[in-house]
């Protein structure tokens, strides 16, 4: 079980809460279960979500492991110049 913090725009999709708990060990599992448990998050996942693990942003690596004690934070995907 990991604790997942959500950026503001996701709160309406999770019934107003800013932190949820999900049984997941990888980013893949996290994103899959997020959409299963909170279907309104699906469009956000489709548009791209970045997963911050202990402050480092991951964008595409589904296989990335989620250490149980890590801070997991979902953020919008950013762009650069």
């Amino acid at each position, binding site marked *: 079980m990991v604790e997942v*913090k959500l*950026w*503001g*725009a996701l709160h*309406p999709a999770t019934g107003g809460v800013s932190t949820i708990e999900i049984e997941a060990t990888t980013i893949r599992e996290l994103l899959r279960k997020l959409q299963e448990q909170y279907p309104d998050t699906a469009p956000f996942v489709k548009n791209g979500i970045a997963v*911050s693990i*202990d*402050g*480092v*942003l*991951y*964008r*595409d*690596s589904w296989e*990335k492991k989620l250490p149980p004690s890590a*801070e997991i*934070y979902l*953020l*919008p995907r*950013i*762009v*650069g*110049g």
Partner: protein
Amino acid sequence: MTYDTQFTGQTFKSVGTRPLRPDGIDKVTGRARYGADYNLPGQLTGLILRSPHAHARIKKIDTRKAEKLKGVKAVITSTDLPDLTDGDSELFDILDNCMARKKVFYDGHAVAAVAAIDAKTARAALKLIKVDYQVLSHVTDVDEATKPKAPLLHRNCFTEGIEPKPAKASNIASRSEFGHGDVEVGFEQADVVVERNFKTEQTHQGYIEPHACVASFGPDGSAEMWVCTQGHFTFRQQCAALLGMPLSKLRVTSTEIGGGFGGKTHIWAEPVALALSRKANRPVKLVMSREEVFRASGPTSATSIDIKIGVKKDGTITAADAVLRYSNGPYPGVWAMLGAMTSFACYDLKNVRTVGLEVLVNRPKTTAYRAPSAPMAAFAVESMVDELADKIGMDPVAFRIKNAAKEGTKSSYGPVYGPIGIGPTLEAARKHPHMKAKLGKNQGRGMACGFWFNFGGQTCADLNIAVDGSVTLTVGTIDVGGARASLALVAAEELGIDYDDVKAVVGDTASLGHNDMTDGSRGTFSSSMAAIMAARNAIEELKNRAAKMWEIPVKNVIWEDGHAKAKGRGKKYAKLAPLSLADIAAETPNTGGPIAGYSELVADGAGVSFATHICDVEVDPETGRTQVVRYTVIQDAGKAVHPTYVEGQYQGGAAQGIGWALNEEYIYGADGRLQNPGFLDYRIPVCSDLPMIDTQILEIPNPNHPYGVRGVGETSIVPPLAAIANAVSDAVDVRMTHVPMSAPRILKALKTEH
């Protein structure tokens, strides 16, 4: 100095040296081929007809006369680029921007295009196209656009991110909020609270090379394109989607690129060139004029930012609040959101809230410009931080050090920071000789910090070892300023061979798997990671081949200092002299054929980036003209692969920031037309405007990269706006709240405040 991370203690032979770049000779002799330097047999000249109106409904386009003109081979409108976007609104917006459909949304919006045997004929044809417009009222100012009675760009635009969804349409496409704690409580704890509005005007990346491409569409439905781009794989993806073709049938070659800074991460004329070529069945070359680049490519946002910060007398910031309105052009983007995320990222704050509003206006589509959206937010925040330090009588560097984010700080955009480098840049600034340099009359000193997210992304590299032992490294990220030298250094390091034995090239879309664009400061970070992995992959095979040559088990072969070495007991092993890469390469025809290493990966773990800049200016109180007289950039590079090019990134970002701070701005008339679409009136810094720009590279290794490398491209543009504003304030004691701080604005401020 103590750093937040442990130095990994790696030593390097090649990495960190400063060899000449492999593409250098071509670039100093005029041989290098940029976008407009490519030509194909039978090529036509393409030109685009653009809207003279800021906002209008397209009632009818009559192309018949143009089509009949001798020498015209194709005329296209939006009907030749039908909507294949299948509900993908982002892709639809790209399509609509490349060729307007029902409405034009800005002065310069493309409405039709021609391909003709030469430019003269194409120009004549454009004049024969008749567009019947119903002109609509427009809005170009970011604050005006948010007012209730502002002309609406889209009647179906209901602000996203507000619960419940608003019932009334507006030009605010979306609202995003970040932060933690309770700012109201925080402000109550403060001894001093300051609140201000800051404005920044729209600027352009100002790359010297206009957008250019040559497209060649064959009757079999396959096509090739040569284009100056920051991401040929992304261009292929978007163009193929808009033209309804499989990715494999569109081969895109990136030419040398004459600057991009984010502006070449988006497609503009490329689908138009492809559609023209498809219709004419001939290659079409399409090169934008400078005027078109200004009017119709993608500048950055104009902004209006409200900032409120509270501070205790001991220097602790108790609360920080910001509302950031960023112009997006006609289509919704993420620009205010990025401003909201980055604005307070340098600080350790208990109570912080940032709200970003994406504002639609009748200006060209906003695009990424180097650390997109961060410089404007930093201008507002760092100006106010300076003002607060002054109000409580604290040194501005000490004030920032007191409040600086560190490992374990909950960032203003959400996550808790791991090891980060803002502290060391501030410490370095405090100790820098620049801080003690003597200031002359009318001179002032300012400093500011900047933050940017770096990122990695999809990356792919091939490393081929030739029979003579020389190596070609093929990467898929565009080289915008010396990356091929850095990547060759990395491959040489890993293989243990000379830099001169590695040639790094950029492959086309047919030669490698997908690579994300060179953006987010990812080029050297990501491709060096892929190059290292490709080299390690090749080394495994080199060991196999050495084992075959020696007729020993491969487990008894190790790789060290660019050589295979046999490790084992007995006389047999003692006699086996190490084999160099060249020795092994020479025998490849007999040991199993060519050796190639490859790597496909997602380069994650880029880590965030911080910089601190110090700046001295001289302000002429008579004219308001400001000259930067001394400038220093301090930034963490993780590990500088080629330090000269790292310095170049620092200096270039600072120079762009200086232009933004003092001169550059889009000026729109009441008619909604851009009044300064040229380098004469949109004045970027010239050589005589600038001093030498000093740099200090800090190397705090990035734990997520094998060599500790961090991206360095973008962060250097974040602090300059604020650093210069703070210096101006120090010099003439006026707080500038509107960028650019052009002479008339400074003069006006001087007259108002003194």
